[in-house]
């Protein structure tokens, strides 16, 4: 069946959104002291790498970057065997850090719940903050992002897709009607 798609963020729009989020993270945390970024695989990890560059451009310091795969923490065991479980790579202690968790699209909130459970098993951060490129609504858990690139009210019959180029940099965000 044919799909109707709309570009809701182009590359320039994404860049503006990420630059704003970078400033907001620095503002909220009064700099980069004890701040670490953790991107949720897949999508959030690539966005986290871009955000790290953006923060380095502004603040002149590269903050630690980790990657989290939450597959093993999902609450729906039956929903996971098509993709190989990815590796979690957080090569620094999380204790007493301000962790900025990064994902591309926030939907039901179950991924973020799983990510927070996973982070708690890996250490005891001072705080966990959440940054997302797109918040599409339909939360099933009481989770609210701290930094949002764009709020996009959607129906459940629509999909939000973030496209990345071959260098894993975000190029556009698409709203697709099923």
């Amino acid at each position, binding site marked *: 069946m044919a799909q109707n798609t709309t570009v809701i963020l182009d590359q320039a729009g994404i860049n503006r959104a990420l630059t704003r989020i970078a400033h907001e993270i620095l503002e909220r945390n009064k700099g980069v002291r004890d701040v670490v970024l953790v991107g949720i695989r897949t999508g959030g990890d690539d966005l986290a790498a871009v955000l790290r560059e953006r923060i380095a451009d502004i603040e002149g310091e590269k903050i630690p970057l980790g990657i989290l*795969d939450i597959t*093993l*923490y999902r609450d*729906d*065991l*039956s*929903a*996971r*065997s*098509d*993709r*190989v*479980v*990815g*590796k*979690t*790579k957080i090569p620094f202690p999380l204790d007493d850090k301000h962790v900025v968790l990064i*994902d591309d*699209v*926030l*939907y*039901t909130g*179950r*991924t973020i719940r799983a990510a927070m*459970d*996973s982070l708690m*098993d*890996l250490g005891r951060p001072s705080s966990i903050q959440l940054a997302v490129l797109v918040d599409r609504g339909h939360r*099933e858990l009481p989770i609210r992002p701290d930094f949002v690139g764009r709020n996009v009210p959607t129906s459940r019959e629509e999909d939000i897709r973030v496209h990345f180029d071959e260098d894993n940099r975000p190029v556009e965000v698409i709203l697709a009607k099923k």
Partner: protein
Amino acid sequence: MAFRHKHILGIEQLSKEDIGFILDTADSFKEINTRDIKKVPTLRGKTIINLFFEASTRTRTSFEIAGKRLSADTINITASSSSVVKGETLEDTARNIEAMHPDIIVMRHSASGAPHYLADRLDCSIINAGDGAHEHPTQALLDMLTIRQHKGSLEGLKVAIIGDITHSRVARSDIYGLTRMGAEVRLAGPGTMIPPGIERLGAKVYADMREAIKGADVVMMLRIQLERQGKTLLPTLREYAKFYGLNPRNLTLAAPDALVMHPGPVNRGVELSSYVADGGQSVILDQVENGVAVRMAALYLVLGGEQGDNA
């Protein structure tokens, strides 16, 4: 790609893609085993019964640790403590266990095909932890994972498997797996320990061990199962060690960076000299470590289902 097998009964039933998928999954699970908190909630609420009708320490322990690290409840039942000693049949034992609603039975049995027999009759998933002289799939998977980690790929590698091929379920599973993944498998051992027609599985048979290990990328030594064949297939252990044991001298025939493997436990001085077993080319302890990751992957994947879309 998806893993759609309810059971893991043997490598023979797994495609190249299936094997690759299990190895990739196991590779990711390795990270969990290095954390301070070595546990994820993935199989919370699931019950795994390790049903071992044959003595085993490392495989049973490995499965038990794997289950616990995935937060499953694991229960061990061994033959000496089960009703088998009271005359109960395998099917009755299994039906009684099934009435306790396990999600997975991990089974070792001296009879080839015993796990298949149960898989046809019970609703839960069955993982074969060794059946007679037939297959030992998770051992072959951990062997392949270990080789892949050290060599990058299995494709095109020359793997020599030396020893008692006839009685070795490890050898049979390794032959299926390695040939399917594109490796060349060479076999050598005393004539009494090479089953007729084994070439049909795609392996080459050599009478002389030195020919088999010449230029090999991996030398896999099998354990002489003293408790099984007694003296009927071997004149003396000393003679076996002389002609089919791996020592620093004949190891030089293999590729300079060849891996030395052994499914354990090692009969030191028989199939492997201590110098080689503890040497720089030995990856025997890597095999043990990878065993936990592979068994975590196996337990995880047999309970798989359809992909969801909740983000």
